């Protein structure tokens, strides 16, 4: 009983810490996105709340929290209420298997604890992919339950888009899985230690550059970001699947989108860019005689990689116009899918030959 209680306490602490970090990151992202977009378009971004607008996320949060919560007259109340939750939970639950720092273990009361990963399950990637697909249901249900043509169109587009691009994400990851021989994110990250050419982006038998490209493009599509933001295309569908949502429910969708962005960036960093590994072997802090603080350097490297991905999301949004629906489908099935499949074949042959 005490062991169970201890396990629970440790897990809840980790979950709380990581949820906190993710939510702070999301708050930061909402501001960073508007600022970066503004700077790229010769504007200033939000400037009113606090010095240089840095308190804008809090103003937004307060506004969304106190806004009237409207349920449209013809809406399916149960599904309408559930959709944002269905969207939000998978976005957050994926962080359970992301390794944020070195694969250390220590013992508390006879229990082995890994401080930098909530749960090192051996099918980590499958778990993330499965929940990412579940998140699509939130969008589809939300679009259907709103009883609005714009929401329905957004939801349907989302369904088609996620079916097409989920496949490419899965297939582009398989190359890495073949190289690492494991589905656990912790094992995959550990296998990329050493210099940066050990990262699976450049790794020896079969560099996963093409897989990385496919993954990045598909990840942008999967998180419904520009240029693949067809489900919420504001110039065509008002706001797409969340047209009818307001207040806190809208905030949930918003939070889910940004949490998905962070999750996708974390997965990309862990799979292709060596996760928490520095581009050089070991850590500088270890060389300076502070091996117990080496985790700070490692987590910082992870943060740097993740945030550069998030910057890429903003950068794409500032640059690219939205794709047309048929272009999106054609690109997914006729370009990305063959590349991903060819990458699997090439990687398999390369790994087989070199072993």
């Amino acid at each position, binding site marked *: 009983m005490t062991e169970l209680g201890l396990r629970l306490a440790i897990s809840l602490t980790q979950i709380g810490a990581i949820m906190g970090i993710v939510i702070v990151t999301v708050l930061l992202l909402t501001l960073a996105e508007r600022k*970066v977009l*503004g*700077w*790229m*378009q*010769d*504007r*200033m971004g939000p*400037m009113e709340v606090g010095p240089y607008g840095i308190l804008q996320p809090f103003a937004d949060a307060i506004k969304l929290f106190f806004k009237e919560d409207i349920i449209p007259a013809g809406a399916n109340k149960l599904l309408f209420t559930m959709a944002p939750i269905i969207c939000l939970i998978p976005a957050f639950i994926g962080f359970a298997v992301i390794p944020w720092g070195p694969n250390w273990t220590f013992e508390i009361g006879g229990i082995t604890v890994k401080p930098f990963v909530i749960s090192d399950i051996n099918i980590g990637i499958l778990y993330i992919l499965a929940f990412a697909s579940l998140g699509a249901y939130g969008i589809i249900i939300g679009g259907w339950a709103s009883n609005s043509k714009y929401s329905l169109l957004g939801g349907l587009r989302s369904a088609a888009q996620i079916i097409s691009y989920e496949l490419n994400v899965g297939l582009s990851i398989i190359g890495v899985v073949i190289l690492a021989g494991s589905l656990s994110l912790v094992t995959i990250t550990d296998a990329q230690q050493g210099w940066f050419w050990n990262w699976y982006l450049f790794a020896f038998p079969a560099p996963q550059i093409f897989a990385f490209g496919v993954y990045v493009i598909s990840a942008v599509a999967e998180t419904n970001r520009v240029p693949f933001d067809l489900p919420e295309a504001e110039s065509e569908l008002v706001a797409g699947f969340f047209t009818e949502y307001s207040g806190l429910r809208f905030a949930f969708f918003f939070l889910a989108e940004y949490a998905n962005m962070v999750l996708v960036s974390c997965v990309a960093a862990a799979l292709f860019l060596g996760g928490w590994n520095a581009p050089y072997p070991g850590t500088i802090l270890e060389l300076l005689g502070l091996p117990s603080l080496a985790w700070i350097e490692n987590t910082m490297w992870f943060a740097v990689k993740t945030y550069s991905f998030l910057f890429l999301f903003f*950068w*794409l949004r*500032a*640059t*690219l116009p939205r794709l047309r629906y048929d272009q999106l489908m*054609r690109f997914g099935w006729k370009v990305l899918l063959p590349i991903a499949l060819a990458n699997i074949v090439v990687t398999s042959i390369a790994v087989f030959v070199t072993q």
Partner: protein
Amino acid sequence: MASTSSTKHLSFSQWFKTITFYELLVGMKATLSHLLNYRPITLQYPHEKRTLPDNYRGMLALLRYDDGTEKCVGCDLCEAACPSRVIRVVSAEVPGEPTKRYSKEYYMDMTRCLFCGMCVDACPVDALGMTREFEWAVFDKRQLHLNKQQLLAIGDRSFPIREKRLELQHPNVAFFNVAFKHVPPKPN
């Protein structure tokens, strides 16, 4: 549609540009260069305001001479010149001075005004002026229906330097609508 695009002959460089997303990279380079050479063209409007051009046409106002008398002679030319029918003038004789007229009432419906400045051009005595005021957002549309006192007040706060009366500016010129104090009145 797909067949036509696939049969089209592509040169190697075109093909290479297509597969490397060359155009996208050009666009992303442009946005990144704007990020790195960050020069915002935005003004933080309520805190800082842009300099208005010299010929800025803002809120209309009625003007006075330096002795405080109104310039307007009630000729209705502004009303005739206005394309949006903003102005309504009720003209009347100055009591006790049959040769002299003034505007008894003067209304402007600023909700309709398009700030063309034709009334100002039309005025023979320069009684109308365009100020540099532009922050005239109101909560009630009827607050934009201005009467003579309000228009004179706008003129007072926007044009602190006033002209002399015309007959004092040009002592040798005869003016319509000006009382000739040095000429004895005609016997009736």
